[in-house]
């Protein structure tokens, strides 16, 4: 563990020195995971890659700001999320869908279905949510931000965040149930 950390520190130092090999290594180390993050916030793979590219440029430019106390992956992930949010705000196709209306608090479903779906399929389902729901669901359920934090990040009230999250969650549960029943039907049909 300590060796890993030392290696990581050395890698960061080399990146700071501008060594292309180290930069490449750091990119290879995190690119796949981070593309997974970007993918959840965007509508297409191309947009996800654009976000990834932009975010990695930021990572290398601001690597000197990384204090080697926390985990590097978490720091990079935070940059990915912020870049993705900026990307959504910047692009018109996302802007229109990112309009958050003040809504009454929607009750959170007590339903806790078992998720029997692959990560990629789950991500695809999340991407089908309305953009506002998608972002809030990702930020809260996956990244672990509180509604207050989300409210600050998106410039909305925490109540709106809660409400949108509840709606997103209900919608996703419905889709998951439908998805699992469809799968069952397919498997019965197969038999």
């Amino acid at each position, binding site marked *: 563990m300590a060796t890993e950390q030392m290696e990581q520190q050395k890698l960061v130092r080399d990146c700071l020195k501008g060594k292309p090999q180290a930069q*490449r290594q750091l990119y290879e180390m995190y690119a796949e995971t981070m593309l997974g993050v970007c*993918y959840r916030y965007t509508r297409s793979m191309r947009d996800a890659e654009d976000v*990834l590219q932009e975010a*990695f440029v930021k990572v290398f430019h601001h690597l000197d700001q990384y204090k080697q106390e926390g985990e590097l992956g978490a720091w990079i992930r935070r940059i990915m999320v912020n870049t993705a949010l900026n990307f959504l705000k910047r692009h018109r196709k996302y802007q229109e869908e990112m309009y958050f209306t003040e809504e009454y608090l929607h009750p959170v479903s007590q339903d806790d279905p078992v998720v029997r779906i692959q990560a990629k399929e*789950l991500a695809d389902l*999340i991407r089908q949510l309305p953009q506002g729901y998608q972002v809030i669901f990702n930020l809260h*359920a996956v990244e672990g931000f509180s509604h207050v934090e989300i409210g600050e990040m998106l410039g909305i009230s925490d109540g709106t965040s809660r409400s949108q999250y509840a709606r997103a969650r209900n919608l996703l549960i419905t889709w998951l149930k439908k998805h699992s029943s469809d799968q069952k039907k397919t498997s019965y049909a197969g038999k």
Partner: protein
Amino acid sequence: MPESEFDKQIQRELEGLRLRPSATVWENVEKELRQKKRRRIIIAFWLIAGIALLGSTTYFLTRKDDQILAETSVPAGKTNGSAEQSTTAAGGQTPAPGDGAGEKASSTTELIQSPARDTESNKNVRSKNENLTENTRVNRNISTAKDEINKNSAVRVKPSAVSQQDELSVTAAATNKKAGFRKRQTSAESIDPAIATGKTKRAAKASENNTVVSQRQEGEGTAINSSADTVAKGKDTQEDITETTPVVTAAPPSKDSTADLVKDEHSVGVPVNTPPKKADKKIKWSLDLAVGGSGPVSRPFLVGDNHADMAYDNVQYMPVQGGGLWQPVTPPVNAFGPVYSPRSDIKPGLSYRAGVLFELPLSKRVAFTSGLQYQYQSNNIRIGSYVNTQLIFNNFASQQVRANGVYQGVQMKTFTNRYHYVQIPLLFNWQLNKGNKMPVILNTGFSAGYLVSTNALTYDTLQGGTYYHDRNAFKRFQFSFTTGVSFRFGNHRSMQWSIGPEASMGLRKMVKTEYDTRQYPLYIGVQGRIYLPRNK
């Protein structure tokens, strides 16, 4: 925070989501990082260039008139001689009031000498002068001269440049002119002529001969200084006076000059000059050698964006000649499908320079350098396979291009674009520090270059991306801004040499706009000069 089991499951699942990005993502990240590095270099270049320009300008605008004054000054001995002789007559006779020689000398004598330098010599002279019995009379006459100086508008002395005793000589002479002369003969032995005349050869000679009689002026209003105690030297006197006439500099009198008269009254009439330091006007010849790296920069002034240049790189569409329409290009196809070859990254290449320069000193710390140089610059690109075919086509900007052979397809090979320039530098060298131990010199200026030959390739989006060579695509004349710092060694030896970093940025595009995107040559390297020994 995930609140329920469902949320936790979602988090677990999605944390494990890994997707492989396409290769272009890293390529673009790398490209951006390189661009940023290049931007830093450009900023550093212009920062240094700006400082160099600002420094040079400030120096030229604020530099003192010392050099100009120094150049107009006259060797000390000669001037002193004439000053002394102002009241002497040919053949040992004192000139009568209104005598031509005496008048000329009195009205024209001015010595340029710094007061600080005079102090030492004044002390020596003062001690000897104390032996003079006429000192009291001199003192009295000084006060008379002091009164006269304000009245006398004919003789004006520049206060900053003229030493105190010189002022006195001038003042005294002027007074003589007005008040007339009464003469008294004294023995020449009572005054050491060498001292009195500022140790000039002639004075020393006069002292040896002992035949010369100096004439001392007497009576009120007659200024007495060493010029009155000096020796007559026969006919030479008049000639000397005539020689010194053009040296005069007119300047208004100041209150200080009068005050100084009182302070330094003991040093009256003992003008001792040190020859002023002049800039060595000899031309220095040197061999100029430099080595470094070079590469093109698309935005040397960091203005505008690259969007205008993007059309040059659109490998999928070409403009239709004569209209604003675009049509898809037909790229070469291999087993995997159509092959588009985007513009290759340009990597810096080796650059070196050799030449002969001459350095013309303009002042003690400023010199002008020019000469003739040969400069080789290069950069590296990746290209596809060579296709030996003669092509005539209209390029992106509808310019007809004729190419004997092109490079197309997957970019597997490295190609070195080579440029051979002959150039004439026009540089100003400004020594930043004082002293000769190790001068630090800021070199700034321009170079006018001519592209003698090149093998460089030009990119076009033809058939999905093609590199070709067309010598007409390149601009022949280049104008560069050059700046650098050099450290000069061996300043006290016959062989001098200097070394230091330098950078140069082309101010004209290398490739014509109708052929390719903007490219300005940037060179960064280390330059060295070996100064040829001079014959002494």
